[in-house]
């Protein structure tokens, strides 16, 4: 599953992620992270035998977890399919289909925000 992990200032110094990796059989992918002494958040993808136990561990350590169904959302009324975003996506999550319509693959998206800040019609937004 994909989720945002929210770190409060109290726990930013704890080694929660490395303990998670050491103690649970999970595979864990950090797609985006912005954590400062004032707290922050991290977009992760977690899977494996003990994914649920791992998630429980994170919650117990005070990491607030919000599952993500969608990382970004595109307003199709605003989008003119110009394709400005295509070459900015570092993970090739944005493609143009056979009818020349711009499509976002939310599974691949890492929420970097390059497309949202560069969209001429402000049609793409990070989903909360």
């Amino acid at each position, binding site marked *: 599953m994909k989720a945002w992990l929210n770190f409060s200032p109290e726990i930013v110094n704890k080694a929660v992620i490395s303990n998670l990796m050491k103690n649970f059989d999970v595979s864990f992918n950090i797609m985006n992270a912005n954590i400062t002494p004032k707290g922050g958040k991290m977009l992760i993808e977690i899977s494996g035998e003990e994914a649920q136990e791992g998630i429980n561990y994170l919650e117990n350590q005070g990491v607030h977890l919000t599952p993500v169904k969608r990382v970004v959302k595109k307003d199709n009324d605003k989008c*003119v*399919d*110009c*394709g*400005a*975003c*295509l*070459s*900015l*996506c570092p993970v*090739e999550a944005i*493609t*143009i289909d056979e*009818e*020349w*319509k711009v499509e976002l693959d939310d599974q691949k998206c890492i929420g970097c925000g*390059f497309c949202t*800040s*560069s969209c*001429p*019609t*402000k049609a793409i937004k990070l989903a909360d």
Partner: protein
Amino acid sequence: MKTIEEINQKIKDGNAVVVTAAEMTRIVRETGAKEAAKEVDVVTTGTFGAMCSSGAFLNFGHSDPPIKMAHTYINGVEAYSGLAAVDAYLGATQPHRDPKIGIKYGGAHLLEDLVRGKEVELVAEAYGTDCYPLQNIHTHFKLEDLNQAIMINPRNSYQNYAAATNSSEETLYTYLGTLLPKMGNVTYSSAGELSPLLNDPYFKTMGLGTRIFLCGAQGYILGEGTQHNTEVERENGVPVGSAGTLMLKGDLKKMDPEYLRGATMPEYGPTLYVGAGVPIPILNEEIAQHTGISDQDIGCRIMDYGVPRRSRPAILETNYHQLRSGSVEIDGTKIQTSPMSSYRKALQVAEELKNWIEKGEFFLTRPVELIPSHGQTVKPLQIKRPSILVKDLKTKAIITATAQDNLSDVARLMVDNNINHLPVIDKEGKLMGIVTSWDIAQAVAKEVQELTHIMTKKVIVAMEDEPVEVIARRIDKYEISGVPIVDRDNLVKGMITAEDLSRLVCSRDDKRGESL
């Protein structure tokens, strides 16, 4: 050979054969131009791209008491009103007057809001005359309330255009979109084989009075656009770079927001996405042959926008078939491409125009005067007082430090020479880093001994052949106070500081004073 009158009769009778430029490419390929010329009567083209040189003349009508508007703001966007009392020209790229909004809402967004029928705020100021006594006005209006709202776009539908990449170390924000550093991406903007002027590359059918599709309404070509250029390099009969342009006219009141959108190129400015389509009458085999052009046949050069000068170096010559595939290869690396103009919308424009003609709602016109096909060039603007280059500046003798120097020597060097910046060089004289007096103060406070630990290693530099204006902008952009000057081999040639630049501005102004 056919005539426009014969084609119009067929349109009236409902039996004209109309195809889009994309369909025509296939027809010419399969049957040849001769057969295609017999079969097809009209080819519809289409484009939907960011066209900055767009705008509209608005007439507000007279208030009571009347006003002669001198400064006019609509939703906070200034429209030029140095015209008769209540006329104004609203340009697409005009930013909002409030710097906090700025380029986020400009003329282009306002044009879209008007076309969507939204109510907008009008504020105007005037100096007051005997016949126009009112000095201020504040009211609201909708597009339907205006007497006229006539779109006049001085330069639309570029025949072709360069593609862009960026070899520099920093992200660039341009009219061709966001360009990632180190050639991280390529952007381009042309409808290729669908594009109006690429289907009539020698302007055999288009000119003043040609009826067209403009933003969902019927509009007209007024003639060649600004910067129209006929003396260009061609391949397969079509220009490989920017060439011909069109000046277009249409009625804003009849337009459809589906084909007109306000947009903002990030960190660049507002621009208007304009949907335009020109019908091409297939009068003969030559015209049919031209409309058969394919993306594969249309060349395009990828230019390096990392060089902030008028002449940018070409990195690669490619074509629209390759660009549209999603990536190009430069020096063995696959680089993703972005179209910037919407091919889907361009197709929609060409299909809609085809639909109008097939339904007998749109008839072709014979232009009063064709677009000039030769003898037009684009002259550059000469700056009478030429740019001063970095190498022309009188800078102080080069003072540098080496990585092995100890901190107190470095500090003394700065004090003795009354300088705040010191480039650090290696044995060959190449730039390794830079230290400032602030870095030295930090080192003393933190008891650091090594120069290499405190110097800034990622140094913003000036090249010798760059104009000083470019350096001034760089110093401002990075909020720094000076940059080392280096040559192509990264050898340090000197130092240029904000003080040097301000001194230069002062001395220029002095000289101007003397000559008066």
